């Protein structure tokens, strides 16, 4: 738990910075728009309707939607618009915060007694005086309630920024969920909830100050709010110096390998930060754009994904092809293969009698396929499906950890397992052979960002990992993190693996 708590301060800082920026932007848009809308009923209907529509989009989906949107915008402007990290998270959260602010500003203004407004005109207030002296103070309590709601939502939803590569309190939550480290999940949740509660209490103080015409109370709340903001963001000052950012996708092996890379780089004198829980397609984009400096990819993923190839060449030819493609296109660097494969493989429970995918094809119409979240949308699935004519009774998607549980409990009969997964040996699963070689190779390969492609010191720190990790060791390291009892942390597994690679 101590270790879980130790990684919180920089995450809290980033989390608070993002939520505060989103709230500031939402206020900057919402307050004037609300003022305008309160005087124009048609605009109010359109604006509140739009904000309400945005609200119905799940937070995770809204964040994901900004990724292609910003990519398109960047292409339109000739590059330079980051599609990952702070910007998409900021935009999505701002849109999310807009509804409660807009709705309550409009409601607050429209709720003012018409007689009071008539009196304001009759005593000779200019429109600006009427707004400052009458409308703003009378609408403030209702508007403030909306701002409170928006702030609490924004702080909660900011945990989702992790998925687009912006570090937030979602990092320990998503990582903990993957590797079943409930102390990490708890630390992230408690910290996010604590932030929301404190913010809500301070905004409540301001709200009561306004309602009871007690400016001292409001100023105290405001001062404490800004003080808290400054304190929370303090760790960012230390993090300002240039450090290496290591990316990791959202499963155990990636967490372990990221820490292993981190260990080597720290030993070479680098400061290291982690961007974990990246989606498969997001990770390579993040590398190409320099958002992350290094991560472990799988050759087949790159081959069929970013490179858009559909052939399945032998191992060496594929690695060659990747190196050439990188040098010509995205300018990223292939440092080298780590020495093991993490290929997609279909796995079944022991004693099923099945040995190959060809066997499976005959029984598939009576069976349920459990897949990880992306497998069913991947070209590999289409490749084996079409090569063997696979037709399942049903297909279900799980996060990787729950997928193995589903196979054990009988919810699924076949799963899209990974060949380096420790649970294959632990659960004595049978991997079905792919005699038609329909699936491409998935060599774990170490990739570097364009800025690091010719950085000799950086490459020298990582080259010793090339071809040094055996699949049995990787399985064992993975299993030590994934198992239910006596779990190791990714750091511990990485340290063990580090020792094994140096034998």
């Amino acid at each position, binding site marked *: 738990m101590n270790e879980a708590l130790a990684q919180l301060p920089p995450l809290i800082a980033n989390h608070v910075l993002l939520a505060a920026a989103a709230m500031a932007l939402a206020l900057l848009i919402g307050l004037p728009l609300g003022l305008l809308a309160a005087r124009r009923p048609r605009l109010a209907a359109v604006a509140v309707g739009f904000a309400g529509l945005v609200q119905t989009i799940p937070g995770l989906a809204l964040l994901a939607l900004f990724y292609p949107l910003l990519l398109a915008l960047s292409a339109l402007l000739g590059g330079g618009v980051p599609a990952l990290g702070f910007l998409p998270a900021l935009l999505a959260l701002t849109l999310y915060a807009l509804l409660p602010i807009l709705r309550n500003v409009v409601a607050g203004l429209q709720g003012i*007694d*018409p*007689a*009071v*407004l*008539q*009196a*304001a*005109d*009759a*005593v*000779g*207030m*200019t429109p600006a*005086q009427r707004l400052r*002296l*009458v409308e703003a*103070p*009378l609408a403030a309590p209702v508007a403030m309630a909306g701002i409170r709601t928006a702030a609490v939502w924004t702080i909660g939803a900011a945990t989702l920024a992790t998925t687009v590569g912006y570090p937030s309190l979602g990092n320990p939550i998503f990582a903990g969920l993957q590797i079943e480290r409930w102390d990490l999940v708890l630390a992230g949740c408690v910290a996010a909830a604590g932030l929301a509660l404190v913010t809500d209490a301070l905004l409540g103080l301001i709200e009561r100050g306004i309602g009871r*015409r007690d400016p001292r109370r409001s100023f105290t709340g405001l001062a404490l709010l800004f003080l808290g903001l400054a304190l929370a963001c303090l760790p960012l000052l230390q993090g300002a110096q240039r450090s290496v950012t290591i990316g990791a996708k959202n499963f155990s092996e990636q967490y372990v390998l990221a820490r292993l890379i981190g260990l080597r780089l720290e030993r070479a004198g680098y400061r290291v930060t982690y961007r974990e829980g990246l989606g498969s397609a997001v990770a390579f984009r993040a590398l190409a754009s320099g958002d992350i400096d290094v991560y472990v990819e799988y050759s087949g993923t790159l081959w069929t994904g970013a490179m858009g190839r559909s052939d399945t060449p032998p191992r060496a030819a594929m690695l060659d092809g990747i190196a050439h493609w990188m040098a010509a296109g995205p300018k990223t660097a292939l440092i080298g293969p780590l020495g093991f494969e993490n290929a997609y493989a279909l796995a079944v429970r022991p004693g099923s009698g099945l040995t190959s995918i060809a066997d499976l094809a005959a029984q598939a119409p009576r069976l349920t396929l459990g897949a990880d979240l992306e497998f069913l949308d991947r070209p590999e699935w289409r490749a084996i499906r079409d090569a063997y004519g696979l037709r399942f009774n049903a297909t279900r998607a799980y996060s990787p950890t729950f997928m193995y549980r589903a196979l054990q409990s009988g919810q699924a009969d076949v799963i899209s397992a990974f060949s380096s997964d420790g649970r294959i040996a632990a659960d004595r699963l049978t991997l079905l052979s792919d005699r038609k070689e329909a699936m491409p190779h998935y060599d774990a390969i170490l990739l570097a960002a364009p800025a690091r492609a010719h950085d000799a010191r950086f490459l020298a720190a990582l080259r010793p990992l090339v071809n040094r990790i055996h699949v049995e060791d990787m399985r064992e390291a993975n299993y030590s993190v994934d198992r239910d009892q006596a779990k190791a942390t990714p750091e511990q597994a990485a340290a063990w693996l580090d020792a094994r690679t140096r034998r």
Partner: protein
Amino acid sequence: MDFREETGARMADLALAFEQVSRRYAGVAAVDAVSLTVGRGSFVALVGSSGSGKSTLLRLANRLDAPDEGRVLVDGQDIAQADAIRLRRGIGYVFQNIGLFPHMSVAENIGIIPRLEGRASADVGAALAQVGLAADLATRLPAQLSGGQQQRVGIARALAGGGRLLLMDEPFGALDPVTRDTLGRTVRELHETLGLTTILVTHDMAEALLLADRILVMADGRIVADATPHEMLNGQAGPEADALVAIPRAQARRLADLGDE
């Protein structure tokens, strides 16, 4: 003195004048070609049933509403040429729903016009005393006052701008009969002591008869009677006025009869 000079001098003596003023809403005339002059220092009651156009006529005098045709003159000046904000600060306006600013204390409400103009705040104690309120109410919020007290503050606020024209739109409409009566007397006293020109819109003929020097009866956007209370009571102001006067008179007679039984 030639004719033009004489007209100019007389115009300047008028606190308020309407020249062929019309105001239409969706084609229906709320005020229909009204011409009217109000002399400085007079207390005019504007009487009529609801929808007769009396409130609209009043609101045309401080540009809370604008005429479709005709001119409105305050102190001899066409108000369409004047700055609306300045004009309103110089004219007291009191209405049935009072409209005190609920988030401001009594003192802040009374001091609002000087504050808007960036002047030093009015003497709140004196302003309260003027409308018959104790000085210690100054720190209260409007919600802590009775309806009658609130309207007294409304009147004090209207007068704090220093204007000598007071427009009142059903100012006692929401008050109980006792408060109505005492507040009516207060307004009449203020009218005398401050030398105000007062226009009181009311649908209550008895109130108009007891307070005003001159009574205008409005019906369908036109002024159908214009007479002193004495003339009104003697049936010299036409059939519409007679019908309105008949009501309080009949009530008084029935009350007298009840007392005799």
